[in-house]
Structures are given as structure tokens and as C-alpha cells.
């Protein structure tokens, strides 16, 4: 292996479960670097792939980005299923183990407090879309009468789509507020662009909720109930996720 660095996945308590059989983003063993009450889950990476210039280039390579993101996620998932973790942002890299330790020192109290808040809880994603995408059949027919009538039909259809997005956005607010009441914490991500998702529907809510594992079934029931009573938006539930959306606030 050429010159190496240390890729950091997540923080955990040093007295908890330790990974032994996972392979990291660069196919090296996943291990922990510990100091005081904290462990950082890491693996060694080569600077050929994860050095500054290599990263700049690789992050624009969609296949590389996807492979690395999925591998990062698989490791955080595997650790989160065994111990409470605070995930780090993708591609957080230090020169060596000592450098990792020096970062853990000084943030221990805050991280231990956050880990306690995350214990026994998972993240669930709730996305709300405005209705169904207009099918080919609902498109105005080619002009049978006059061009003016056809244009009017087109305008009517655009108005209907605009109305349905507004109605869905109102429903999404009701859904968000109701689910926030049933969750420990709530976070809004920016709605995803249809060009990225390939979904023709307009996303009006992209939220994450931190939910007690024991309350997950009730939370799902609430999602289903809200989805039924708020027909303007169609709801997509994802998860359980490691608490990616609930670990911000440290070292920012």
C-alpha cells in the first residue's frame, strides 16, 4: 500500500461493541481508535484514492461516489446495529491515528451526551410527493376544436398541477407537525430535485425523524394514518437509518 491516511466513519463509546470482521471503503479492516470514553470507527485508506487531489477527482466520478457512499453506509449500519453511533460526514479523513485521537480529545463530554440521546433510537425518513405524476392519458388531446380551446386546456392542466402541489405542501406541513410530536427529534432535508431522483412528482417534504426503537411500529401506524387522511400528498417512508440527520452540532 502506498502512503496511507485514516478514514473515519462514526463515533461510539469505547466501552461498547467493537467491530472485528468488517472491511472499509478501501478494503482494509475496520477498527477503532480510542481515547478516554470515546472510540472512532475507522479504516486505513490509501492517499492514491483518498488524498486531497484524488478525492476532488473521485467525488465527481458517480460510480466511485456511489460505491464509496454505499460502503460507508454499510459499515455505519453494521456498527449501528450493535452499538450506538454518531455518524460522521462521508470522507472525513485524518493523517494518522494520533490525529484522530487529538480530535476526540476535547469533544468527549458533548459526544457522550449526544450518544446517550441516540441510544435505542433510529432515524426514519418521510418524503411527501405531490400526487401522482400526470400520465400520458391525462394530457390534453390534440386540438379537435380550435387552437384556442387546446391552449385553454393546457392552461387548466397546469393550474391543476400547481393547485395539487400547493395542496400537497399544506398536507406535508400537517404530516410533519404530527410526526414531530411522535418523534424525539425531527429534521428537514431540502426536498430532492426530480432531476436527481428521476421522479416526475414534486417533492414537498424530505424529513427525518429520530424515533425510539420500541415506538417504531406506532410511528409507522401514524405515517400510514396520516397518509390516508391527507390524500393530496403521497408518502414514502424509508429506514431504519443510523442517526445520520441527528448528529450535527459538534465542531461546527
Amino acid at each position, binding site marked *: 500500500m502506498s502512503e496511507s*491516511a485514516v478514514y*473515519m466513519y462514526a*463515533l461510539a463509546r469505547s466501552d461498547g461493541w467493537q467491530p472485528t470482521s468488517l472491511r472499509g471503503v478501501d478494503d482494509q479492516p475496520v477498527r477503532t481508535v480510542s481515547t478516554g470514553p470515546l472510540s472512532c470507527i475507522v479504516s486505513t485508506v490509501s492517499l492514491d484514492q*483518498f*488524498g*486531497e487531489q484524488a*478525492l*476532488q477527482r473521485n*467525488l*465527481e466520478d*458517480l460510480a466511485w*461516489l*456511489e460505491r464509496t*457512499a*454505499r460502503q460507508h*453506509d454499510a459499515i455505519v*449500519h453494521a456498527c449501528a446495529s450493535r452499538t450506538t453511533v*454518531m*455518524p*460522521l*460526514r*462521508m*470522507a*472525513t*479523513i*485524518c*493523517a494518522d491515528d494520533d*490525529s484522530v485521537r487529538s480530535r476526540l480529545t476535547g469533544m468527549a463530554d458533548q459526544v457522550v451526551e449526544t450518544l446517550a440521546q441516540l441510544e435505542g433510537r433510529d432515524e426514519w*425518513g418521510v418524503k411527501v410527493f405531490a400526487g401522482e405524476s400526470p400520465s400520458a392519458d391525462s394530457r390534453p388531446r390534440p386540438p379537435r376544436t380550435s387552437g384556442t380551446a387546446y391552449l385553454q386546456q393546457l392552461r387548466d392542466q397546469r393550474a391543476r398541477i400547481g393547485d395539487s402541489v400547493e395542496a400537497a405542501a399544506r398536507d406535508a406541513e400537517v404530516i410533519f407537525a404530527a410526526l414531530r410530536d411522535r418523534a424525539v427529534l425531527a429534521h428537514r*432535508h*431540502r426536498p*430532492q*430535485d426530480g*432531476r*436527481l*431522483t*428521476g421522479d416526475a412528482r414534486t417533492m414537498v417534504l424530505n424529513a427525518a425523524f429520530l424515533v425510539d426503537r420500541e415506538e417504531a411500529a406506532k410511528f*409507522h401506524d401514524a*405515517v*400510514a*394514518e396520516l*397518509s*390516508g387522511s391527507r*390524500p393530496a400528498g*403521497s*408518502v*414514502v*417512508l*424509508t*429506514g*431504519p*437509518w443510523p442517526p*445520520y440527520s*441527528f*448528529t*450535527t*452540532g*459538534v*465542531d*461546527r
Partner: protein
Amino acid sequence: MNPATEVMPPSGSTSLVDLLDRLLGAGIVLSGDITIALADVDLVTIKLRALLTTVQEDDR
């Protein structure tokens, strides 16, 4: 579960965009030794968007 609610399977078919929301847009931001433009997530998402748009156009 209401038919209007889609539940995604826990793994395998996780959408890359859902994942990147979380891996790039959330999580603790620690300043590592190797600092890259990733610190500016918007830059990455803009580039990614341009890339995906290109990919989608190629598919057509």
C-alpha cells in the same frame, strides 16, 4: 399499511440521493487533515446534479 404509503426495503434499494442527503448533508462535520471541496456540500451537489442530468440525457 395504507396503499398510498410506500415502504422502502431497509437495504439494497436505498436511493443514492437519500443516502447522499445524509452522508453529505448531515453527520458531524469534523475538520479532518485532508480538507477538500466536500466542506462545501453545495459544490458537490451542483456537480452531481450536472453529472446526473448528463447521465439522464444520455439514457434518452
